[in-house]
């Protein structure tokens, strides 16, 4: 976990210093796509179980500011607030004896502060890299194993993400982009139906398409 944050801190500064010229100003945007939650290990007093998920939805509302060329003391790039929600159904649980059916879902609601660096090619394609930090509430909703209730609880944790993508200017004000982001949190802790603790992991691969309106 510590190494992940070290990489985030180092590359945050690199990202801010990696951008070409653009007009300064606010923007709003929408993003949507698929969220693929990584297989996660849940640990309790009896040992560890690996949970698997189906792909689910992932959507965000963006409010940001493009630094353009007008803030040389800070650097170039964009800074934005992202309000995000995502949901994935559980598909199975792996025990020592093998894989078994599991029900329920994992939900995510988060607010992220993202820094984005962009490079515009001669043909006008925008290549961007993104880093973000924020706060996420992770919910395990009605999770059951073979029909037996297991956990129904939520927990808030520090969140982080990193991503890459490409965009196109549709007009002077509208930009369309597609991209990939890796999203993770510090390990959440839940209370199971029997009152005991469950240590969990959460990480997601986000495949997104977005539309941004520059003011």
């Amino acid at each position: 976990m510590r190494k992940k944050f070290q990489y985030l801190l180092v590359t945050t500064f690199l990202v801010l210093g990696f951008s070409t010229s653009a007009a300064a100003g606010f923007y709003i945007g929408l993003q949507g796509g698929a969220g693929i939650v990584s297989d996660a290990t849940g640990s309790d007093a009896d040992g560890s179980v690996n949970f698997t998920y189906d792909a689910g939805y992932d959507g965000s509302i963006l409010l940001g500011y493009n630094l353009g060329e007008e803030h040389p003391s800070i650097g170039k790039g964009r800074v934005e607030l992202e309000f995000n929600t995502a949901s994935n159904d559980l598909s199975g649980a792996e025990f020592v004896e093998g894989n078994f059916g599991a029900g329920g879902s994992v939900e995510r609601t988060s607010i992220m502060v993202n820094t984005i660096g962009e490079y515009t090619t001669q043909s006008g394609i925008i290549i961007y890299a993104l880093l973000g930090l924020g706060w996420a509430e992770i919910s395990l909703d009605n999770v059951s194993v073979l029909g037996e209730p297991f956990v129904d609880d939520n927990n808030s944790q520090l969140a982080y993400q990193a991503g890459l993508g490409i965009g196109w200017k549709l007009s002077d004000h509208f930009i369309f982009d597609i991209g990939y982001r890796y999203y993770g949190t510090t390990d959440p802790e839940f209370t199971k139906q029997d009152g005991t603790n469950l240590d969990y992991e959460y990480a997601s691969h986000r495949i997104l398409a977005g539309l941004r309106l520059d003011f």
Partner: protein
Amino acid sequence: MQLRIILLSCLLLVLSGCWTDEPTRSNTFIPLTSIEVSATYQSMANNTVNQYTAMGDFSGSFTRDITAEVTWAIENNTIADVSNAAGSEGLVTALSPGETTITANYDDLSGSELVVVTAAVLAGIEIIPQDAELQVGITEQYEAAGTFSDGSSQDVTILATWESSDMNVATIDNAGLATTLASGSTTITGAWQGIESNASLLVTDATLTAVTITPETATIAQGTTVQFEAEGTFSDDTPQDITDIVDWQSTDNGIGIIDTNGLAEGIAPGQADITASYDVGGNIISDTAVLTVSDAILESIIVTPENSTIQVGENLQYRATGTFSDNSEQDITELATWLTTNNSVGTFRTPDSRGLFSSDASGATIIKASFGGISGETLLTVVE
């Protein structure tokens, strides 16, 4: 250059979250569907003990020893008593001659077996080993085998009183575990119900110089077991089986675990080192073997001997050989659940030696061995 650093950082972040370790939790969500109760001895002499075992079948997916998880009860507690105390669950003590039933209960499920207490009295005791020669600093588990007036035999080790005539040479505890202290000779005595037997113990001044594990490498399928053994070499070049007294460790319990007797179980695919070590006055003597756990899946079971015929009263030891998806074969006799379709012909009554069939009457039955949802079977005919 900056782009490469950002791309590399993103890749490392992604890769760091891509894999999970193998699970270590048993599935307690699959319902227990049946309990099979068995005992070390078919009958027991009065005042002796007999260990009963409960094997749980979890919806046919897997079986597990649940002796310590069930609640034991005796129908007639004037004939026998059963322990539910930690460490001695299922241990029955005979109180008076007769027959009663023992039941293992788990929630709404139960399994039962007969408890037969005979009026046989102790006729003699044999101490095992009789004439032992051990090195200093070694422990040896003595056993007391009792023979009874009806010709039956039973282990009375934990019932006997143990003594060492020269406690400067060796001591022995209430469970028959002897520890050698110095070179010399002593006499080990085991006594019960007024009958005693002796065995000689010679302790040499040779010290342990090396430990050798066999096999050096072992490959097993996930969920199966392999027995490792440790042989000690001493300063007088004498060998000694020290499997039960060395300290067994696995370098990765997520891949393979090993118990105090050297029995290793494959938990998840991978490789782990198995070490056996012994402390000789602060100097650790050890050896290492490699345990490889494959992801092979059991595909079939062959039960042998096939289509056998025995006489009434005879026993027959069956073996179960599992064939796995990687074309490997493993003896899974000790892991399988053994069943017979016609209990009037005979049953499997000995948990410590699984697969041992004892015949009671003439007839035909199907012998079935099951493990991990896979079964194998064969026909057995019992004749007069």
